[in-house]
């Protein structure tokens, strides 16, 4: 571990470690980004979707005649019509099925029932109101506990062989060994908590513009997709279209955060409509459609128990989790892991036994279960263990920092195999936590806290030390619908020494056009400004599974480095030819090839590039380009120590984050400025979820968080200021030592905020308040603790 890293290239080259200003910004700052809705095509029609007002109901009939008669309406699409093309249902990324347009029943409020295609978006919206649907209401299930009760109504009666609302049952770890450890423990500490339903709500909603050429069958679909290649394959499967005739273009994307991974019914209907009508069809959802129908996140009901010795040594962990999946199991989850990577729940601690049991249940809520700035449910896991360790500290009377130091995996234990089967690659947790505590002045704060309590003021200090598992993933274990989670990079160096790098991933604000160019710049010495990065067009980029779960840098970034090295190998041979030296004597540094020991004899990467097309050694193939598909040998394991100080008003329950110190170790930072920006964003999302942001339903299944007035998102005014620190423990198996960072702070920070608030009131006996920690919840917890004499 080093504290920071130094770039090895000069600023004019701008390789790894330089805070290069972003290339993509040039178009965004002048209003020339091209997002989905900015695209128009000749003859384009507009589509709007009719959604169910009821969460569970039988559809007796749908009358579209009045809507179809409206001037300007071109078509009204129903499930019945789609069924004629075998398109009424589609597969989800988890291998379940999902209704495209409802035929038999609606199973959540906001479900797609019909669509109007019109010459104008206002007309399409008007016509929706004229569609008459006769619904027969059915009993509504709004929680997974209700859903799994013996007398619960069967939600998925469309599925053959489905006899209950259970979606999956899955476990990890060693049950027997865990039981033994619990039997021997001095103490058992437990915590039950709910990680509430949330929604990623990127500022740009989802949409598509489908253009099917009826003469050629060529379908060009502009789509807000984080994973264009995977979506193309799924589309080929759903629609039975030949894959070469489908071109998915993901234009500039206004934020994704997991929300733009799944296939949504609107994409399928718009494409089908374009196919049938023979004109381009655009569909852009409204904010409330986005919030009520597209990929939600979290909704895990968790119970965790720690077996401990009296002096605070953890012996084992036992976890039971029940997830609310909504009406269709649409998680974008690797096939082998039904609850995602939730079993990383052993966190940063060294103990021998763990057992994790997970179940998922159908409910009458929207489907999704996406990894919202999170690598497949790691956020829930990290939250649980960090809350649980903190609870144990209170129960055993140990300082919350000390109990962590006592149980950390030590630097010399890496690679470290966890009891649930991960092999952590590297880390120095004690140094990270120590540095964060020192930065915030931990001991002094503890003294201040004690003094404040004497005055009736509540100050809390919350710690979270998280370890993430990102960069899915090694092909042996990780696939989505059978597609291995590899990713790729294609690099072409042109005769003038300028390059184009093409990738299978898709940036949604992470700055790939800059960072991936920096990787190539670092490897080949081509200035970063001379490298163009192309993503998001399946016709023009190599295959890959896309950008989510912090996998772009660990997988596609690795591919970019490896393909650069392949090019460097060939370039070295060409340089040897030009310099009349042996291949092995050629050194490459900062874009200059020189002969070892005779630095005067050299050629530049530009000279070599020209030679690749003009003057080659005998027998060599022309050109300087290559492609690499990267299959990661392991996941990467970024980690961090976050410490938050809050002031809680004892009389109102209102709390304010006074300081937020975040130390992240994501291995080598390609562009430190961008890494810090990602961390700022993640810390804000973590604050949002811990303080205000959640999707709620009433008992009848009405979604009451369906717009930005009810679904609260922090503005600049509420958002705390952040103080960032870093250490750098390069990943030993990643070609450039990077680990990925886009989601770290969202994963790690919720527990820090919540632990801080709990810490402020722990002396009263409060051990849990479910997120979001709204003032009334905090106030009630204080009141009831006081009433019971805490």
């Amino acid at each position: 571990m080093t504290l920071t890293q130094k770039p090895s290239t000069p600023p004019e080259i701008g390789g790894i470690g330089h805070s290069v200003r972003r290339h993509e910004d040039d178009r965004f700052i002048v209003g020339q980004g091209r997002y989905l809705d900015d695209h128009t095509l000749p003859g384009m029609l507009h589509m709007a979707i009719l959604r169910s007002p009821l969460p569970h109901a039988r559809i007796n009939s749908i009358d579209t005649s009045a809507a179809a008669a409206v001037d300007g309406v071109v078509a009204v699409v129903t499930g019945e019509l789609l069924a004629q093309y075998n398109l009424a249902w589609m597969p989800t990324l988890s291998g379940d099925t999902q209704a495209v347009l409802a035929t038999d029943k609606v199973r959540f409020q906001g479900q797609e029932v019909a669509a109007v295609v019109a010459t104008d978006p206002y007309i399409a919206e008007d016509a929706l109101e004229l569609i008459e649907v006769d619904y027969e209401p059915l009993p509504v299930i709004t929680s997974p506990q209700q859903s799994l009760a013996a007398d619960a109504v069967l939600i998925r009666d469309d599925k053959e062989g489905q006899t209950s609302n259970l979606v999956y049952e899955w476990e990890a770890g060693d049950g027997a060994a865990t039981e033994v450890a619990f039997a021997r423990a001095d103490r058992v500490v437990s915590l039950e908590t709910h990680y509430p339903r949330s929604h990623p709500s990127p500022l740009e909603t989802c949409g598509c513009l489908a253009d099917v050429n009826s003469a050629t069958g060529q379908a060009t679909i502009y789509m807000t997709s984080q994973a264009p290649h995977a979506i193309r394959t799924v589309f080929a499967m759903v629609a039975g279209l030949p894959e070469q005739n489908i071109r998915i273009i993901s234009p500039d994307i206004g934020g994704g955060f997991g929300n733009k991974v799944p296939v949504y019914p609107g994409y399928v209907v718009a494409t089908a409509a374009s196919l049938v009508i023979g004109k381009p069809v655009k569909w852009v959802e409204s904010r409330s459609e986005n919030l009520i129908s597209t990929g939600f996140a979290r909704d895990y009901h968790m119970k965790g128990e720690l077996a401990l010795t009296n002096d605070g040594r953890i012996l084992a962990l036992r976890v039971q989790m029940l997830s609310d999946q909504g009406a269709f199991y649409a998680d974008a989850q690797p096939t082998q892991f039904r609850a995602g990577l939730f079993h990383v729940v052993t966190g940063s601690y060294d103990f021998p036994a763990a057992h994790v049991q997970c179940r998922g249940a159908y409910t009458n809520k929207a489907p999704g279960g996406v990894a919202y700035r999170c690598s497949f449910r790691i956020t829930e896991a990290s939250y649980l263990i960090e809350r649980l360790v903190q609870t144990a500290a209170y129960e055993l009377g140990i300082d919350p920092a000390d109990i962590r130091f006592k149980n950390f995996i030590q630097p010399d234990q890496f690679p470290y195999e966890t009891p649930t089967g991960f092999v952590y690659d590297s880390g120095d947790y004690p140094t990270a936590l120590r540095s964060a505590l020192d930065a915030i002045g931990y001991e002094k704060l503890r003294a201040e806290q004690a003094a404040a309590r004497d005055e009736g003021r509540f100050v809390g200090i919350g710690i979270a030390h998280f370890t993430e598992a990102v960069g899915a993933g090694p092909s042996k274990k990780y696939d989505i619908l059978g597609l291995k989670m590899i990713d790729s990079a294609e690099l072409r160096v042109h005769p003038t020494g300028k390059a184009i790098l093409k990738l299978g991933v898709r940036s949604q604000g992470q700055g790939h056009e800059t960072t991936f160019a920096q990787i190539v710049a670092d490897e080949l010495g081509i200035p970063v400004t001379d490298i163009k990065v192309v993503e998001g067009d399946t016709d023009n980029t190599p295959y890959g599974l896309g950008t989510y779960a912090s996998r772009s840098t660990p997988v596609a970034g690795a591919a970019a480095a490896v393909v650069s090295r392949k090019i460097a190998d060939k370039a070295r041979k060409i340089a040897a030819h030009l310099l009349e030296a042996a291949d092995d004597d050629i050194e490459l540094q900062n874009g200059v090839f020189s002969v070892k020991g005779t630095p005067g004899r050299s050629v530049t990467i530009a000279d070599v590039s020209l030679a690749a097309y003009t003057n080659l050694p005998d027998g060599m193939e022309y050109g300087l380009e290559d492609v690499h598909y990267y299959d990661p040998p392991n996941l990467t394991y970024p980690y961090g120590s976050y410490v938050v100080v809050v002031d809680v008003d004892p009389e109102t329950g209102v709390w304010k984050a006074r300081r937020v110190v975040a130390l992240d170790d994501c291995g080598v930072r390609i562009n430190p400025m961008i890494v810090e920006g990602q961390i700022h964003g993640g810390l804000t999302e973590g604050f949002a979820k811990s303080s205000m942001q959640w999707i709620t339903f009433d008992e009848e299944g009405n979604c009451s968080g369906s717009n930005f007035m009810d679904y609260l998102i922090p503005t600049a005014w509420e958002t705390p200021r952040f103080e960032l620190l870093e250490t750098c423990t390069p990943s030993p198996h990643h070609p450039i030592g990077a680990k990925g960072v886009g989601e770290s702070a969202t994963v790690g920070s919720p527990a820090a905020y919540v632990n801080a608030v709990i810490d402020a009131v722990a002396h009263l006996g409060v051990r849990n308040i479910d997120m979001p920690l709204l003032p009334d919840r905090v106030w009630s917890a204080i009141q009831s603790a006081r009433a019971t004499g805490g």
Partner: protein
Amino acid sequence: MQITVTLNGSDQTHDVEPRTLLVDFIRTKGELTGTHIGCDTTSCGACTVLLDGTPVKSCTMLAVQADGRAVTTVEGLKRADGLHPLQAAFKQEHGLQCGFCTPGMMLVGAALLEQNPAPTEDDVRWAISGNICRCTGYMNIVKAIRAAGAEMATS
């Protein structure tokens, strides 16, 4: 009905339905797509433009209400001699990620700096509190607006 809006300095006369929202007018009739739509409840500020110099949410105004008035969008920020200091500062300070909120943030920033050339951090946070950013956590947006103010004061 026919309306004339001065859009970034040029008069645009078009026939519009009375119910047409200003944001749709700008994006379709004006063919300027830098003004974005992020919500349907006047909550996000992605659609912010300047109406006679004052920030308004163009998703919550009818186009006819802008008849005879001047609208400035992100496309109108650029100066003859190059980028507006705000645009340069947003890039320099990494004040944007996906860029979707950026036009609205910059226009609110422009109006703020017009009135208060040297805002404090709190001044900026308050001014942009009608605009949501899902990516940046606001830290660098605040920095960028303040840096632009400092730059404008010295030039």
